[in-house]
């Protein structure tokens, strides 16, 4: 039964998606509306299953959309609006995590792999090329041997 309830909750979130497009809530200024929509896509619907408030029909998503639209209309910047949201709901509300030490593994991980891989490739190429050639000592020995050879 709990499983069914969980599923029902998921459907409730899925039924009517792209809810932000509803003409009834739209801001009169198209430029402001477009800005609000861009912000919506970056804000998580906290009660939904991994959806932005741009997509979700949930009541909380509607409330958040209203808050964001009001702030956009009041002329606040994107950064200010996001700051306002994170103050209230924590970092969880943003769909793109911020650059911070806490998120070092997240943002740095992939590039660490690239650097590590490139380093391994480079060292392998270098080791092999020195291996293929003679070291100065060996070269000197070869020269000495060929010079002393009377034939």
């Amino acid at each position, binding site marked *: 039964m709990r*499983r*069914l309830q*969980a*599923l029902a909750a*998921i*459907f409730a*979130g*899925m*039924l*009517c*998606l*792209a809810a932000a*497009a*509803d*003409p*009834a809530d739209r801001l009169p200024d198209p430029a402001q509306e477009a800005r609000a929509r861009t912000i919506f*896509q*970056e804000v*998580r619907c906290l009660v*939904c*299953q*991994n*959806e*932005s408030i741009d*997509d979700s029909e949930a009541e909380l998503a509607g409330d958040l959309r209203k808050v964001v639209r009001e702030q956009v209309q009041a002329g606040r910047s994107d950064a200010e609006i996001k700051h306002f949201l994170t103050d209230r709901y*924590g*970092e*969880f*509300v*943003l*769909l*793109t*995590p911020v650059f911070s030490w*806490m*998120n070092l*593994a*997240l*943002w740095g*991980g*992939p*590039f660490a*792999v*690239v650097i590590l*891989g*490139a380093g391994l*490739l480079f060292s392998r*190429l270098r080791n*092999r090329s020195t291996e*293929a050639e003679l070291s100065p000592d060996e070269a000197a020995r070869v020269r000495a041997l060929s010079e002393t050879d009377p034939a």
Partner: protein
Amino acid sequence: MIAEFGSFALILALAFAIAQAGLSVVARMRRSAVLAAAGEGAALASFAGVAIAFACLIHAFVTSDFSVANVAANSHTEKPLLYKVAGTWGSHEGSILLWCLILTGYGAAAATLGRGLPRGLKALMVATQGALGTVFLAYTVFASNPLLRIARPPVEGNSLNPLLQDPALAIHPPFLYSGYVGMSVVFSLAVAALIEGRVDAAWARWVRPWALAAWSFLTVGITLGAFWAYYELGWGGWWFWDPVENASFMPWLMATALLHSAIVTEKRGALAGWSLFLAIGAFTFSMLGAFLVRSGVLTSVHAFAVDPKRGVLLLIILGVTAGSAFALFAWRAPKLAQGGLFAPISRESALVMNNILLAAATTTVMVGTLFPLVRQAIGTPVSVGPGYFNWTFAPLMAALAIILPAGPLLAWKRGDLTGVGQRLWVAALIALGCGLLAYALVSPRKAFGALGIAIGVWLVAGAVTELVERTRAFRVPAVDSWRRLTGLPRGAWGMTLAHLGLGVFVLGACAELGWKGEAAETLSLGGSLNVGAYHLTLETVRPVEGPNYDSERAMIRVTKAGQPVCSGEPDRRFYPAGGQTISGIALCYRGASHLYMVLGEKRKALDGTPVWLIRAYWNPWASLIFLGPVIMALGGLTSLSDRRMRLGVARRRAVAAAQPAAAQEQPA
């Protein structure tokens, strides 16, 4: 009675899987051909057992036998036959049984087809496959048996989630699982090779067909899932960087890397350890995917059939199998022989760079999927959405796409960058030109979209250049070029197709992401809205009764500059069995682009007349998003049909195949 028979067959299959593992291990220790053959026979028997159990479950679903708990929970008498059958793998238990069916199927195939393999290696492969079968079958029998009865059968079942009642999704799990589980053969071959302590060109050649088959299935499976999301979820998206999608994408990336590193191992004997690592990693990520999706540990828009309690068991299975394989790797891999030398500019280097970038891309997807779990555990939850992947995954893939066309044109060991430049400058010019044109001419102006178009054209033109080079078109008489073209080995065609498909996909994805148009209005009958260059008019809305739903169906007429173009009939269905409402979208195809129409909820206007919320999207080149991966999978299958791939046959015809192949292999 039939359900009990199925349970019995399932238990027998488990017994056979245990026998398969045991007999094959003893066969390897005593070098006994008889015991090895017995082990292979057990592999076939195990597959037969699971197949019978699976057939019994399908029977229970088709006949709507609600005394079987799984059927009662997931089926309904009024459901169309296709979805009754598809309901078999729609639940947790059923999907794990499907997993077992495909796992034992691959085991039986590997036991039958692997005739060219050395006996010791083959026995160990069959043993590993048997061990995997044992673990998953034991889980099915003891923790997730789909054939269990209930004491008081209901009169009617709970029905399958209507979102899943869709032809693409009905066949999506079998394809996806054929991909996931296909990696098990590659995994078993890697474990066997590690125990034997020998990884050479021959090993890479045996791995390749299995990796190719699994990769092709996985490509089709993921594409079907993306296409389903595109037209069923009703907001025109096809990829959301959702944990469930990421779970299927990680093994795909690993398998792609393996396909490329195995070429180096096969042709030059290098990267053997890395190929082994990828072979183990690909199946590990498959199991991780199954665990993530089935355990519900991550929140997702499309996690169906979730069960946290059994998730722990799956996690243990994952930990034990992957853990022991990686431990074996850490122990044995350092002793493997290092391969041939190569210069910084060479095909080997290009393939290594491909692998570095794919490994980094896999890391991106993995970290992006699992990092929220870590942050949640330490009490400061964080969300990782599309923005993160746009900043990490996209540049990695762009770098990969930029070096890609050069790879096949470089010679082994020591390549010549100037020569590659001389061959590719035409492709580069075309790509640059298309990118600039897209930037200058298409409105609204989108720099990233134009860059994407340039990269897509670069990939397509690069693949064509590769073909031109192989056939020496425009430099030798057309007859000679034609002879060369028809003489190309299928493996070469496969590679060209796969790279071409990637280019087609990039074109579609970038055009759709860059220039997608959206419009939504509440319309009364006769009302209209504009999206892209199109004018949509709501003509009628009428009630329609479906097989297991009631619906309202709209009729929308589409015109462009006053000329009629097409019409769409999106609907809105109510499923009484589960009480859900689902939007059925309508697509109007305009070349490769789509006009996407959704009927939303019915409302009352201020004057009391009914109005409907209509949403429409203009998705330019959206068909290419799904066509590209299909071309890639076709490339995989073409390569698979290369006669050099066929085990056993390969030796007899090696001489015949080697001559034209060798002539084509080295670019001039």
